[in-house]
């Protein structure tokens, strides 16, 4: 009897460890919890239309989502639709491991014509890409986000600035900051604790000074970071730091903190993404603001460009519901669904035919500048170099390092990486 009881307990333990039964249908993992409601609405609509169940599961914040996706990939437990939330280098690892479906045949059927080409190409690999991924389209953009500078019209007016004519050149930008400071207003805020944001601001100057060719040559090591053009870019941050344009504590602010500072009218300008429109609406519905492009440099050789991306979704190549997943994404990017997404989430739709349905004036401004989004480069700078550049920029803002010191540290690291890569 005792033995029987022991074996019984052991069997219960074993069976309690058996895997959970998975419900049939398409499962999507997303990282934006604020969209859960509209996603569920769309899933219900799709079920009524096709009889196919779609389940959205949201996991936030995005870095937690990223980790979840990576852990699931190692256990081959990825859902039918997801996103690795990474650059082309990281996406390439997923594709090469067989976790992402090549969508080229479907895109070539005409699907690709729905999207902005420069956005769609962010998940596209050229023929001779550095990661040796088969040429093609691997992701479906759901919406578009880009980054510009928001400005508070009331604070501009208070400082004697024209609220309908924000600065366009770097000189005008500095002059506006001076006037704001004189009026006792913090001029500029952003979440510069997040390295990528300080990098985005710097990149808007890099594209003007170096252009695509110059940036690629730098990545290849043909232009050094100690080149006068790079020093000039870093000097812009020195100038902004000396003019004390940055809000108190900008270097340790996450973007959420910076959004609060701008929404509560503690700073007059904020470098932020188009998602900010929705955020500010929630934080301060009466905020009167506009948006403008990053300032143009006087002797820039190239036009102003801005950072932009999309919420790409990728289809799991190992999914047993691959066809259903692709069909759902096709349906999701159709005009009707895109209009609903735009109205409910206040984002720029990825379907370019829906642009005219945008109601918000500021979002219209963002949408009108989609053509200015940085083109996707065929090669990427090493993350360590990018990280050191961001830290260097933070040091310049803190007046701890000069532009020349940052440039020389960067070049030293770049040389080491190039040497390692050549071995």
């Amino acid at each position, binding site marked *: 009897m*005792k*033995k029987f009881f*022991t*074996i019984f*307990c*052991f069997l219960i*333990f074993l069976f309690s460890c058996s895997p959970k039964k998975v419900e049939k249908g398409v499962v999507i993992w997303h990282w934006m919890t604020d969209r859960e409601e509209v996603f569920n609405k769309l899933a219900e609509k799709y079920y009524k239309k096709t009889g196919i169940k779609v389940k959205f599961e949201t996991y936030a914040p995005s*870095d937690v989502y*990223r980790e979840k996706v*990576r852990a699931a*990939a*190692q256990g081959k437990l990825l859902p039918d639709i997801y996103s690795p939330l*990474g650059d082309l280098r*990281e996406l390439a*690892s*997923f594709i*090469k*491991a067989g*976790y992402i479906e090549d969508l080229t045949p479907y895109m070539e059927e005409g699907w690709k014509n729905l999207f902005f080409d420069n956005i769609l190409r962010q998940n596209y690999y050229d023929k001779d890409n550095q990661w040796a991924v088969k040429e093609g389209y691997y992701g479906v953009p759901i919406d578009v986000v880009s980054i510009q500078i928001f400005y508070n019209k009331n604070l501009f007016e208070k400082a004697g600035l024209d609220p309908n004519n924000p600065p366009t050149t770097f000189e005008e930008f500095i002059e506006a900051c001076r006037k704001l400071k004189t009026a006792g207003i*913090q001029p500029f805020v952003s979440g510069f*604790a*997040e390295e990528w944001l300080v990098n985005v601001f710097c990149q808007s100057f890099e594209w003007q000074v170096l252009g695509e060719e110059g940036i690629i040559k730098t990545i290849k090591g043909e232009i050094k970071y100690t080149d006068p053009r790079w020093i000039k870019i870093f000097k812009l941050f020195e100038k902004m730091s000396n003019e004390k344009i940055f*809000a*108190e*504590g*900008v*270097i*340790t*602010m*996450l973007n959420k*903190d910076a959004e609060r*500072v701008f929404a509560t009218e*503690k700073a007059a300008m904020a470098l932020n993404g188009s998602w900010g429109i929705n955020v500010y609406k929630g934080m301060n519905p009466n905020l009167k603001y506009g948006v403008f492009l990053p300032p143009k440099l006087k002797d820039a050789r190239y036009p102003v460009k801005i950072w932009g991306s999309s919420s790409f979704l990728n289809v799991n190549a190992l999914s047993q519901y691959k066809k259903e997943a692709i069909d759902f994404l096709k349906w999701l990017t159709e005009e009707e669904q895109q209009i609903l997404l735009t109205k409910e989430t206040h984002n720029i739709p990825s379907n370019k035919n829906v642009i005219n349905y945008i109601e918000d004036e500021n979002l219209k401004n963002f949408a009108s500048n989609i053509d200015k989004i940085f083109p996707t480069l065929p090669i990427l700078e090493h*993350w360590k170099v990018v*990280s050191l550049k961001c*830290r*260097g920029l*933070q*040091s310049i803002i*803190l007046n*701890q390092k000069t532009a020349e010191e940052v440039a020389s540290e960067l070049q030293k690291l770049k040389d*080491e990486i190039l040497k390692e890569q050549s071995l």
Partner: protein
Amino acid sequence: MTTKKPDLNGLLFVLPAIIMFSIFTVYPFIKTFQMSFYSWDGISPIMKFIGFKNYKDILFNDPLFWKAMLNAAIITFLALTVQNLVALLLAVIIDKGVKFNKFFRTVFFIPPILSGIVVGIVWKWIYDGNYGILNAILSFIGLKEYTTAWLSNTKTALFSIAVVHMWKGFGWGFVILLAGLQTIPKELYESAAIDGADDFKQFIYITAPLMLPVFFIVSILTILGTMQIFDLVYSMTRGGPAGATEVPVTYIYKYLANNELGYATAMAVIFGLILFSLSIIQIIISRKLKKT
């Protein structure tokens, strides 16, 4: 002569625990060590064996890792001294039987049980250069010239985090030290008092020697706990400004987030070995002191 048969029933009952321990402790430990010899992005099916290269790079070519170690060491030094002295002082006062001692015991133990991330976010608001209550208080009492963006200033950021860490951590030391103090027989103090020893002498000649093993336990726990600090740093500064508050775990996390699993695990192994060595040294010193 009869030989006792192994008790199969007993084995079956501990089997779940052994399985769990093997899956969640032994296997990750072995896997971490194995991965440290590879270059791997965490996704690719192919792992490239590179021998000791990661170790060589960390030991001889990564000043940022050692800067992170130094930052953690500074916080640890402050925790070992200031935090534990405060904990000891409070434990001695409570042990004397002050009024409301149960209330104080509970209050002192609240910070350690709070979530590190929550504490970090709350203190981030306290330190905030725009809204922070600390700056508001300083301004109110006429010390406006001392206001700063505490976490954005490279001179104050690390110490600001250390203060929060000590505030959050002193409760642990307090509880252990208080438990140690309560094991000392009261008769010893009474005899010493009859012999004319004042409070200070009683502390030096009775409390301190008898509390030595407890001091070592608290020290080991403080070192291990503080060197591995992560949640506070991550929620308050993410290692910034410009790397001024980077600690080993945030640095390792950064490499993990950038899919450099081989390098990150090699750092974790080195870091683990350093902590292990520190603990061994402390145990040896503790034993020697006990003997003397």
